[in-house]
Every structure is written in C-alpha cells, then in structure tokens.
C-alpha cells in the first residue's frame, strides 16, 4: 500500500467498508471517527501503515440491521439524524463516550460530542439518544 494512504481511505477504498465517511479530511468534522483498540480517533489524520497490529472497529462492526447496537437503535428511535451522512461518526463517538469520564448532564454530552459536526442540526435528538442509552445501561 502507498504509505500516503490514510486509515480512512484504506477502510473506504481498499477494504470497501464505506460506512465510515469522509467529510473534511482534516480533523474538523468527526465523520471519519472509528475506534482503534477501543479508543475513538479521526481516521483521516493517521496513516494506515501505522496500524498494522491494531484492532480497528468501524460502524459496520457495531451492528447490522436485525441486530443493532443499542446506540444505533437509540439513534433510530430518537430520530438522531436527518441526511445521515455524519451519523456513523456520531454513533462511533457516542459509543466511545459510554466508557469515558463524561459527566451526567446534557451539557456534558454536548461537550463530549463536540468533535462531531452535524450540518442538519439534529443535535437535540442525538443528545436524547445518547442519554437514553446511558440511562438504560445504568439500570
């Protein structure tokens, strides 16, 4: 592989996992968010060659129609998207947030999801979806 290939381009163009999206390609939107060894990162700002031994999780690895991840189901239930382009990045961030030291309030969730931009402005429903999953996982 050409060493210039970013992890994002490798996922989309080489492995054909197109669920991870390219928005800005410069770390400014969060559409390309994936998990590397369980931590969320922007796949557009790292080279694929740096991750040969790493475990990468994309939206495809979270769940599929018929067996959705609880966060995917919550985004559907709360209508946490409009055009859907940035949704996979939002969901990857939201799932990572469940294990991060994020405070309980809606403001805390907004801060922790601040690195994921949504041009449609579906933010209130995204926050509702995340809070619903967090409440449920406390039960």
């Amino acid at each position, binding site marked *: 592989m*050409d*060493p*210039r290939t*970013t992890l994002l381009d490798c996922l989309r163009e080489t492995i054909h996992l197109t669920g991870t999206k390219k928005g800005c*390609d*410069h*770390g400014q939107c*969060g559409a390309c*968010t994936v998990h590397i060894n369980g*931590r*969320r*990162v*922007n796949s*557009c*700002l*790292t*080279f694929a*060659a*740096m991750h040969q031994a790493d475990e990468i999780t994309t939206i495809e690895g979270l769940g599929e129609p018929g067996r959705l991840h609880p966060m995917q189901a919550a985004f559907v239930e709360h209508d946490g998207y409009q055009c859907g382009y940035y949704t996979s990045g939002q969901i990857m*961030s939201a799932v*990572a*947030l469940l294990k*991060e*030291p994020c405070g309980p309030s809606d403001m805390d969730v*907004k*801060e*922790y999801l*601040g*690195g*994921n931009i949504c041009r449609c402005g579906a933010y209130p429903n995204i926050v509702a979806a995340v809070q619903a999953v967090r409440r449920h996982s406390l039960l």
Partner: protein
Amino acid sequence: MRAFTFKQVARQEEALLLSDAHAGASPGEVRFIAGGTTLVDLMKLNVERPSVVIDINRLPLDKIETTPDGGVRIGALVRNGDCAHHPLLQSRYPALSQALLSGASAQLRNMATTGGNLLQRTRCTYFRDTVWTCNKRVPGSGCSAIGGANRMLAILGASEHCIATNPSDMNVALTALEATVHLQGKEGERSVAIDEFFHRPGTTPHIENVLRPGELITAVSLPAPAPGSRSLYLKLRDRATYEFALASAAVVLTAASGRITHVRLALGGVGTVPWRAHEAEAALLGKGPSPEIFRRAAEAVLQHARPQSENGFKVELARRCITHALTTAVAGGGEQYGS
C-alpha cells in the same frame, strides 16, 4: 501529498540514527510522526513535504512519572486525553488538565501527544494555503496576513515578517507551570526551559523553536507545585467547544494573609509564542488582590499590544480574560494544592 518513505522504529537510538541520516538537505525533509493530527493535516495541504516519515509511536515515551523533587515527568508520547484525565495531574496541575480539555475534540485528544502539541503549527490561513505568500512557509516570500485576514492572529511579539499565533492551549499552561522540555539528539540529551523553547518570529518566522534537525523531544517535566497555590486555565473563543482561543490565560497563584505571595501568568491566542506575562506578575506580587490591581496587571502586559487591521478587539478581550482568571483564582475557583 508528496510521496515519502515510511519507517517504524522501536528504539530511541534507531529514531535518532534515521533522523540524522536523512536530516541535512533542507529542513522538514524528515519528520517524526506521533499523533499525526498536525503533520498529516499539513502534508495533505502540501505545507509539510517530508521525504521520510518516522513513526515513533512504539517508543517507550508514554509514561507519567513523579520525580524525586516532587514534580512530574510527562513522556512525549502521552496522549493529550490521558494527560488531561490523569488523577495526579488533575489534582496538582489543574491548569494543565483544563487547558488540554479545552483543546480540539475527544477524538483528536486521543491521538495528539505532548511532543506533537508542543510543536503544532500556526492556524494562520495563509500558512495553510500554498496559493498565498507566507514567510513562515517560504522564507522571504512576504506575509499575506499583514493587512489581510488577521482576526485570529497575534497582538504580542509579532514582527514585520510574521504575525501568526502559537495556537496551543497546552503550551500556555506549561508556560505558567514553568515546564522544562527534554530533548535527545545525536550529541546527547539537553533540557530547555519552556520560556526559552519558542522563538518569536523576528526576521526568521520559519524557525519556531530551539529544536535542532533530527532532535527528538522525549518528555516535559513540571516542578513541584508551589504549596498552597491554585491554578486554572480560562479560554475565550468563538464557540463553546472545538475551537482555538481568541484569548486565554493560565494562572498559578498563592495568596496568604491578604497578599499575593506567588504568581505565574501566561497568555494564549494573543502571542506569537505562548506568552509569559512577567510584567503582570511583577505588578501583582506582594499586593492585596483587588479589581484595580488586576486591571493594572493586565495593562502592564497589554501596553505592548500592536493590533492588526482585524484584531483590535483582542486587546480588551485579553484584559478581561486576565482579570477574570485572576478574580476566579483568588476567589478559590481554581483547585488548591497542598493546603
């Protein structure tokens, strides 16, 4: 993006040998890559054009350790997010934790490292776009920002050759906390006080710091916090998150018997380098805290401000940032250590 040779190293000596072998020709020909959040971004824009990229992520520089003098040593590869959430750093150096958490996004902080953050480049629009002239990118070509879009740029420490801001939040906190940067080169190790690490632009804006070609940052260390001191970081920006500072302040302060007995103040978003406000510190030391004293301290720094066509507002914004940060610190808003 220019094609490059990619190398991965597992040992520090290997990294130094490689970087030394390829340094030389022109600066920037060889680059280490840590988090990649500055380097990959700028390589895509053809602003960084290394022919060799050395991946240093496997070097054992990812530890946070206490030092015998009661301070702490933060490895160059500690991720900004891990540093921000480290319990010891959060309790002893809250300004550092707050500064890191105020920067970028959670994803970027999982990637970004201590060493990379120290060396992050300016966000000046013209630096990032090769269509424009820029002395920092192409020495001697001219500065498009003077008289151009300079709202975000510096009011302190600029020259006729460059008015770009150092955009880092971490660097501001490290400056107030009097950090030391540890370097390793082919000639051996050396340590540089953070106040001497960065160069103001002068006539050579492309030379941003004391790092020699091929030299590796290994760690940053902090002295023990002053007993009874509080520290905090205040950042003012265009939106509430995921945005660079227009003005910011890191304060370390001790007040005893109604007097300020110890104070360190550094500013971000307004200087060409992380700005240590020595004159403000002198105006505060030994005084009883009051709005009037804080205002005078702010004035002591900002009397030197030279605003550009679009950023005159930063002078008053920085004044208010300083006075608000000091007021909060004295009122106990910052965390207190060792009381």
